[in-house]
């Protein structure tokens, strides 16, 4: 293992480590544009120049491998001068129209100019104008070649990661221009990742464009719920403008969050734009057969029904259809309340059409927590359809449904039959045909409005955090379950999802030894010997 000195500090790194990564290990960030840890090295922007002792010229730290005894200086006068000159060169033909550029605020040209530039431009010829200003190159991405610094990250992404080869760099010299290969359009399922890796405002997100300046955004780490992969994301929400007109969306976009164990640096487009579900079509008030009703009355009725069934010894005839969309904590409370306490008829799965999957990130299972549900509730349970059939036969005193849109999956007829046979209570985030048919539909918070954990298809337990307040009257399902436990006088004292998780990790083997703190924002994988369930869920 080569040992080298960077800025006076010694560091030992595995053979083949590039200087830029060795410096990062010491907490030294070397400015860079074309280097990206997830992409092959191109070494074309020359921004990462450092001085290496006994080397007559500055070297690019993204390409040079660490060698034993190397003495590297990232902050020497020569290195600084080199970076400043590079930056000035990159900005020669740059339009610097930051006020209308959507990247402003998270632009590496702006950041590095403040850090390494601050020069007066020495060039007073006219800037070379590229052929066209911003134009769409696919359903999700807009290209402005004028702002491009030709780092080739987007080209390498489509060549190496998606292998769809849409991008190329054409022409030579100051006529070089990034563009699409003739006849292609950037519409692969991962296309919008090029927006994240483009260090400047050349590639922008058509959906996010002009919606919100980035300095208004608040950022909360979370997990995508689009499929069972559980890609790590950051929820960007509008934070600073309470004076803005009411009724506009609160969530502005999702961005991928680096997690080397799960999604690396990427997410799929379907997941990225699933943020729209957070604010649209929501169930915000309790409904009685589709008409606004009082939430307290609805909660009271369900609690009363549970208490009465327990008293009469009929609690085994309460049907509960939990869901793999619920967090581990909620599923654990479902188990504590409905299995341990009431011995109710429990299910959490329904027959679904097979989802689309690929060999990169997208999985066929479109629920974020099936692995967790199988671990917590067990695999030997009945299916949701059986509960529906029992309800239709009049065999159940009540049917409680969490999240599932039964009408869409089992058909409106079976839903209606079940609703005739037993009172139907639906806990849902969105309005749908099932909530209309329910005796009571109760609004619950979605994953952006509460904290908790999901278990992805690899058996990795990952935390979600609350980005915004629950919409309308909705509240997290775990709170509703706690309210029911109060009505049954079970003496639960859960104040937060964290305290539920502590109990979960104490009683479910797969979660043993995990805590909110050890999970952190990267999550942790189940102990070996447990992930069979997870493998089955995949």
């Amino acid at each position, binding site marked *: 293992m080569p040992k080298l000195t960077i800025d006076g500090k010694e560091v030992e790194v595995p053979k083949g480590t590039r200087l830029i990564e060795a410096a990062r290990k010491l907490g030294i960030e070397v400015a860079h544009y074309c280097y990206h840890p997830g992409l092959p090295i191109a070494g074309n922007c020359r921004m990462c120049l450092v001085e290496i002792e006994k080397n007559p010229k500055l070297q690019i730290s993204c390409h040079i491998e660490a060698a034993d005894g190397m003495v590297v200086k990232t902050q020497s006068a020569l290195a600084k001068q080199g970076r400043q000159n590079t930056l000035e060169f990159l900005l020669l033909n740059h339009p610097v129209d930051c*006020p209308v550029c959507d990247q402003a605020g998270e632009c590496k040209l702006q950041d590095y100019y403040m850090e390494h530039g601050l020069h007066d431009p020495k060039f007073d010829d006219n800037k070379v104008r590229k052929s066209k200003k911003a134009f769409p190159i696919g359903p999700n991405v807009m290209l402005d070649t004028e702002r491009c610094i030709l780092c080739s990250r987007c080209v390498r992404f489509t060549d190496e990661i998606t292998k769809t080869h849409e991008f190329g760099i054409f022409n030579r010299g100051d006529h070089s221009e990034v563009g699409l290969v003739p006849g292609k359009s950037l519409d692969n399922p991962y296309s919008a990742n090029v927006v994240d890796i483009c260090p400047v405002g050349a590639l922008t997100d058509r959906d996010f464009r*002009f919606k919100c300046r980035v*300095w*208004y955004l608040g950022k909360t780490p979370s997990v995508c719920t689009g499929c069972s992969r559980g890609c790590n994301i950051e929820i960007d929400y509008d934070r600073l403008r309470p004076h803005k007109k009411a009724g506009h969306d609160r969530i502005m976009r999702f961005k991928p969050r680096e997690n080397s164990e799960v999604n690396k640096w990427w997410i799929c487009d379907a997941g990225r734009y699933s943020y729209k579900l957070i604010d649209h079509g929501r169930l915000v008030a309790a409904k009685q057969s589709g008409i606004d009703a009082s939430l307290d009355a609805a909660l009271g009725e369900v609690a009363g029904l549970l208490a009465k069934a327990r008293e009469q010894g009929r609690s085994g005839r309460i049907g509960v259809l939990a869901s793999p969309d619920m967090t581990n904590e909620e599923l654990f409370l479902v188990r504590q309340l409905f299995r341990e306490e009431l011995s109710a008829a429990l299910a959490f799965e329904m027959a679904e059409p097979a989802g689309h999957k690929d060999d990169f990130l997208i999985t066929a299972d479109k629920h974020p927590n099936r692995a967790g549900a199988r671990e917590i509730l067990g695999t030997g349970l009945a299916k949701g359809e059986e509960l529906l059939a029992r309800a239709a036969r009049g065999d159940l005193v009540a049917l409680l449904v969490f999240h599932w849109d039964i009408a869409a999956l089992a058909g409106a007829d079976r839903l209606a039959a079940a609703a005739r046979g037993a009172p139907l209570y639906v806990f849902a985030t969105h309005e749908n045909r099932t909530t209309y048919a329910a005796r009571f539909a109760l609004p619950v918070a979605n994953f952006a409005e509460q904290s908790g954990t999901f278990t992805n298809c690899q058996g990795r337990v990952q935390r979600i955090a609350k980005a915004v307040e629950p919409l309308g009257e909705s509240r997290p399902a775990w709170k509703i379950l706690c309210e029911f436990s109060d009505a049954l006088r079970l003496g639960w004292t859960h104040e937060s999802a964290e305290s539920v998780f502590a109990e979960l990790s104490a009683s479910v083997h797969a979660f043993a030894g995990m805590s909110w703190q050890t999970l952190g924002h990267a999550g942790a994988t189940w102990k070996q010997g447990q992930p069979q369930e997870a493998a089955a869920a995949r």
Partner: protein
Amino acid sequence: MAANVKVLKRRELTWWENTFLPSIYAGLVITSRHFFGNLAIHISHVFGLRKKERGSTTYQYPEEKRPLAHRYRTRHRLMKRDSGETRCVACMLCETICPAHCIAIVAKEHPDPDIEKMPASFDIDLGKCVYCGFCVEVCPEDAIRMDTGRLDIAAYSRGGMILNFDHLMNPELPVLDPAKPVAR
């Protein structure tokens, strides 16, 4: 260098001055002089005399307006391009800098890709504005100015204090209050 300190001693009032009678008398003399002086000028105006002299020191607002210094900050307006379109590119820098949080802009795509961005709506809540002028200073396009000379900002509701894009583009328009009661 030693500071050059000049000690000023305050003069003690005499007992006669302490009664305040001489000051009250002097004040009354000044007030009466103005009163009768103005009265004489106004009477002369009625007879068409001494037209060049002002009859009083107050302005008869709203008929008579006080001349404003040319840097004086008044109601906002948005500047226009030669084509008559707004110069504003909806960069939201004014919205960001505004200490009163009274600017609300929604941006949209401009049909001309060389301009790229323009406001879909632009509201300034004058009920909150503190007339600091930061918005004018920060604008990179010289698109917003506070030089309309208009101070007549009054409305029957808070909502009526909000200038919209039309008001800003046409500063001669009155601030229209939808809740305005019909003239009695």
